[in-house]
């Protein structure tokens, strides 16, 4: 009983036709060939068990056009008002646009360039069809180099702005030199862009002793947007990475994170909150690979799900043979606020070394009646009591964000979402 020949969906057919019309580089051609052998992921692909991209991507939007000078100017002035940080690297419809960025504000030692030679697979994420698709269609990769010893005090913002209901692809490689301390904020903005389809990849190579904080805001995405966001990171010895994501916008958001410890004694914290309503679907799938000695990882995710929305969390912690003294803890909590809200959890452990402490926990439930009663007995109206409890629930992960300005901004995002519940 051999493998059945794969049936090509309309979306896959359209993608192939579109790819044929691009001026592809060698990497892009390899990437598309790899994608074609796998096709769009579906339920039978374990990593996509709860998010059937093949079924959800019925129609493929046209590829985004390069932004006109007029559009760039418009975006630049808009961003001056909205952007959180002085130093910003702007992408309009998937393309790096120096004209809308503020590169002069980048600290010394930070350089932004472009490269055609970034390989298809990030070191830690192979055989993921959506990443191959990203490499095939991203016109070129943007490389952000932070030289060893650079002094990066204020956050660097990567601002991804979408203006049309098109497909956009961005591929960003961040090389963080030894000993660097940096905060990178990733903002996705596509309000008014309708049913656009975004595929973004952010790849970190973090040197020894570096300390990186990464914050992703998926708040201002268009309500009809589909976004597959890949995040990959390798860490050197004693390095530290903290990544936080807030998802409140978009119709379908898939965040896939791949982290590997290459050096000993490093630490990673992956955290996030998803606030979902309507028909939103948010899937966070992550793999943390302990390949070195004495590393620590923390994965902590919170979902608040209302209406017909669906939350998905799939986390996998791998401890390789010899990765002794690993300390891993993963936790996913979800509150379902309506009868038809759904939450799927799959926290996985794969352990091949014995001197380890690993654990995971997952909970799903409604708001606690007793807690509500307690607050209402003290005179709070129901809506306010609920808001208070939900704020505290999401706050538990938001407070792990070290950058205070960002922490405030994220809290405000969460509050805004909560206040819409009862309006």
């Amino acid at each position: 009983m051999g493998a059945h020949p794969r049936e090509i969906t309309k979306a896959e057919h359209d993608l192939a036709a579109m790819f044929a019309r691009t001026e592809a580089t060698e990497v892009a051609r390899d990437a598309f060939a790899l994608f074609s052998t796998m096709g769009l992921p579906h339920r039978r692909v374990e990593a996509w068990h709860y998010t059937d991209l093949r079924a959800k991507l019925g129609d493929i939007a046209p590829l985004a056009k390069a932004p006109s000078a007029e559009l760039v100017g418009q975006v630049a002035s808009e961003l001056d008002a909205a952007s959180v940080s002085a130093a910003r690297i702007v992408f309009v419809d998937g393309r790096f646009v120096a004209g809308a960025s503020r590169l002069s504000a980048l600290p010394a030692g930070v350089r932004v360039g472009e490269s055609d030679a970034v390989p298809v697979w990030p070191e830690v994420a192979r055989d993921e069809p959506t990443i191959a698709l990203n490499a095939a269609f991203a016109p070129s990769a943007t490389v952000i180099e932070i030289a060893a010893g650079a002094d990066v005090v204020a956050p660097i913002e990567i601002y991804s702005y979408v203006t049309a209901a098109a497909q956009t692809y961005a591929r960003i490689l961040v090389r963080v030199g030894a000993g660097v301390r940096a905060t990178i904020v990733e903002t996705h903005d596509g309000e008014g862009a309708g049913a656009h389809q975004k595929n973004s990849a952010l790849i970190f190579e973090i040197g020894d002793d570096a300390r990186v904080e990464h914050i992703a805001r998926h708040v201002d995405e268009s309500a009809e947007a589909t976004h597959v966001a890949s995040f990959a990171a390798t860490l050197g010895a004693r390095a530290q990475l903290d990544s936080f994501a807030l998802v409140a916008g978009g119709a379908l958001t898939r965040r896939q994170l791949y982290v590997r410890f290459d050096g000993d004694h490093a630490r990673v914290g992956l955290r996030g909150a998803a606030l979902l309503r309507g028909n939103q679907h948010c899937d966070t799938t992550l793999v943390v690979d302990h390949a070195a000695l004495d590393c620590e990882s923390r994965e902590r995710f919170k979902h608040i799900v209302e209406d017909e929305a669906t939350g998905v969390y799939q986390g996998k912690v791998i401890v390789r043979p010899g990765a002794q003294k690993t300390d891993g803890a993963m936790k996913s909590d979800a509150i379902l606020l309506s009868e038809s809200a759904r939450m799927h959890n799959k926290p996985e452990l794969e352990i091949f070394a014995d001197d380890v402490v690993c654990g995971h926990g997952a909970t799903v439930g409604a708001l606690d009646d007793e807690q509500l009663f307690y607050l209402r007995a003290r005179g709070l109206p129901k809506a306010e009591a609920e808001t208070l409890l939900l704020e505290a629930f999401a706050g538990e992960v938001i407070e792990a964000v070290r950058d205070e300005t960002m922490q405030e901004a994220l809290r405000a995002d969460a509050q805004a979402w909560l206040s819409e519940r009862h309006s």
Partner: protein
Amino acid sequence: MAAVQETVEQVRAIDVDAYKYGFVTEIESEKAPKGLNEDIVRFISAKKSEPAWLTEWRLEAYRRWLTMTEPTWARVDYPKIAYDDLYYYSAPKNAPGPKSLDEVDPELLRTYEKLGIPLREQEVLAGVEPKNRVAVDAVFDSVSVATTFKAELAKAGVIFCPISEAVHSHPELVKKYLGSVVPQSDNFFATLNSAVFSDGSFVYIPPGVRCPMELSTYFRINEKNTGQFERTLIIADKGSYVSYLEGCTAPKRDENQLHAAVVELIALEDAEIKYSTVQNWYPGDSEGKGGIYNFVTKRGDCRGARSKISWTQVETGSAITWKYPSCILRGEGSSGEFYSIAISNGRQQVDSGTKMIHLGRNTTSRIISKGISAGHSQNTYRGQVSAHRKATGARNFTNCDSLLIGDKCGAHTVPYIEANNASAVFEHEATTSKISEDQLFYCMQRGLSGEEATALIVNGFVRDVLQHLPMEFAVEAQKLIAISLEGSVG
């Protein structure tokens, strides 16, 4: 620590290769020709003089099986099974239908004596009623050789007999319930079983009856190159209760043997079924040669309101285990439980867990799983908890802990937790660690050897599960755990 000392000494006495049930019984047997085709299916059916509907049922399953592919999603790795190179039926000669134990081949009786399974009913001595009596159905390769305490059970209205006999004596029950929990086409191994199932136990507990004794089946694979495909069907009618035990062993052989069983449990309104397994099939030698492939489908259906099904398993044997005893919680307020100890050593591979499917309102389930891996083994817990849209008030608690002994083994946890309505409350926790140096030091400082200390700590680790086993089994299981882990401590 007398008890621990005793365990350790027993382990030592068993020498290097610890499997003590590895002997072969020299007995003449009658086999079906090698291989599998429609004629073999008809042959098995004819051997058991089955009615036409059942022969057709088997054939249907066989035809379906031909279109299916072997599942590959489990974390187990084994060479391709040559399904055409197996015997699908083997029976000790003259075995079917002995009228009493005196007619049973004495070689067989000796076999069961050696295994410690009493086939002779204990007599009532001088008015002293023996306390813990267990009725046994002994299945040897493809047939049931003896069932004890039948008469006494019949008095209570309990039907306990080989399934091949139930097909004739209670066709209406078999026809109604067979395949109603695990359909013919359920999965590759269950479908194969539906086509060629040999024997197994049939239990029916009438309404309101509390089964007067523990029921048990003892499975033994003896013949070479044979697969064992037993099928067990237990029906607990309204308000009844039964506790059922299952044990298994096989001789040491160099080749791998296939065991693909199906167990179906049905609990009607207010009924309770407690199903305990001590699985000790031959695990293969320390290099991974030989051993049983244990590919089993076990499922219970809580069909009636407030019914309850509880699975307890101690898995120490088999080269490869692929087994997920599950509960379908259909009846309102029904509950399911799964208590498991899975121990792997040597080159064993275990992929086991459970499914709790919440369909009815206010259903509850509880999963306690303890995995222990040692040597070069791989031990995976794979479980699913799901609440249907209409299963309001569903509640689950899951705890799965893994213990690693040595740095060449692996322990993995793959839970799927799916909540489709807001009033479902699911909690899941899992930990993986090794035996802490502090604990070992503490015990050894008080005079225990390293092995004794490990046995003690492991017994503590699995206690939550052991206490759910019937008493005789708990003692047996405790010893088995120590034996399985022999040689795993530094």
